[in-house]
C-alpha cells in the first residue's frame, strides 16, 4: 500500500471503537490501517512528550525524538509479539531513542548526587533509617519556589540508572512491572532502585539543609 496524502491538522479523525493500544498496533501491522497508528500517536502525544522533555530537558530535542520514536514504532511493528504490552514497549523505544539523542548531542549526563554533593556510601541505608528520627519536614522550612528548584535539581542529579526508574514510575505512572520491562531489568531491581533514589534524595536534602544551617 502506498502512502496516501497526509491529513492536515484540521482534518477530523474518524471515530474508532475504543481499542486497546495492543489492538491498534496489531491492526496497523496486520491490516496496514493508518487510522490505528494515528490513534496511537494521539494517545501518547502528551504522555510521551512529557517523558522525553523530562529525560532530555530540551523541548526541541524532545519533539525530534518523539517523531523518531514513532518512526521506530512503524519499523518495529512487525516484531511486536501478540500478548505483549504496548506501553512498556514504546517506553523502551523512547528511552533508547532519548539515550541516542543525548549521545549524538554530546550531552550524556555524567554528574550525580554523589559527585555534586560529595561521595556518600548509601548501601544498606533505608528510608526508614533515614527518616524515622526526623521531626517535621525540613523541606517545609524553605520557600516553595526554593524547594521546587532544589527538588528538580536533585532529581536531575540522580545517577541515570536511578533517574530512569523515577521518571518512569513516579512521573509517568508506570507500574513497577512495566518499568522493568521498559528498562529491561528485573522487577526487584526496579523496586530497589526506586527505594535507593528516595534514600539519596532525602539524604541529599539533609546534607544541603545541614550545610545551610551551619552558615
Amino acid at each position, binding site marked *: *500500500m*502506498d*502512502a*496516501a496524502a*497526509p*491529513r492536515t*491538522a484540521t482534518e477530523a479523525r474518524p471515530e474508532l471503537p475504543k481499542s486497546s493500544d495492543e489492538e491498534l498496533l496489531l491492526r496497523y*501491522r*496486520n*491490516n*496496514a490501517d*493508518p487510522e490505528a*497508528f*494515528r490513534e496511537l*500517536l*494521539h494517545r501518547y*502525544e*502528551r504522555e510521551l*512528550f*512529557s517523558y522525553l*522533555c523530562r529525560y532530555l530537558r530540551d523541548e526541541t530535542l524532545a*519533539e525530534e525524538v*518523539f*517523531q523518531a520514536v*514513532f*518512526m521506530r514504532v*512503524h*519499523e518495529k*511493528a*512487525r516484531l511486536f509479539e501478540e500478548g505483549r504490552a504496548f506501553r512498556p514497549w514504546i517506553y523502551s523505544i523512547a528511552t533508547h531513542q532519548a539515550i541516542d539523542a543525548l549521545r549524538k548531542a554530546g550531552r550524556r549526563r555524567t554528574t550525580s548526587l554523589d559527585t555534586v554533593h560529595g561521595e556518600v556510601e548509601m548501601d544498606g541505608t*533505608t*528510608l*526508614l533509617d*533515614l*527518616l*524515622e528520627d526526623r521531626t517535621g*519536614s525540613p*523541606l517545609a522550612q524553605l520557600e516553595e519556589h526554593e*524547594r*521546587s528548584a*532544589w*527538588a*528538580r535539581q*536533585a*532529581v536531575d542529579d540522580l545517577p541515570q540508572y536511578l533517574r530512569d526508574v*523515577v521518571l518512569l*514510575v*513516579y*512521573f509517568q505512572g*508506570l*507500574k*513497577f512491572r512495566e*518499568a522493568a520491562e521498559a528498562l529491561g531489568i528485573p522487577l526487584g531491581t526496579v*523496586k*530497589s532502585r*526506586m*527505594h535507593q533514589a*528516595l534514600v539519596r*534524595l*532525602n539524604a541529599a536534602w539533609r546534607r544541603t539543609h545541614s550545610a545551610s544551617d551551619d552558615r
Partner: protein
Amino acid sequence: MVDNLLGYLLGALETEDLEQISLALESDPELQRQLEVFRQALEPLELCREAITSPPDLAVRTWVVIRQNVAWAPQQ
C-alpha cells in the same frame, strides 16, 4: 514488604500485591506508621511535579513526517 509500601503509594503495584498490602495495612499499625514515613519521603518528588504541555499538533506533524517517509505497507 517495604518496597511494596512504596509501590502502594506510587500506584505501581499489580492487583495481587496491591490487595495484599491493602489488607496488611488494615490491621498493622506498624505498617501504617512506615507508610507515613514513606509518604514523607516522596515530598522531594512531589515538589517537582510540573505540567508539561506538548507542542501544538505534535501528533499531526509526526503523522505527516511518517507518511512522507515510509511506505504504508504491512510490516510482515
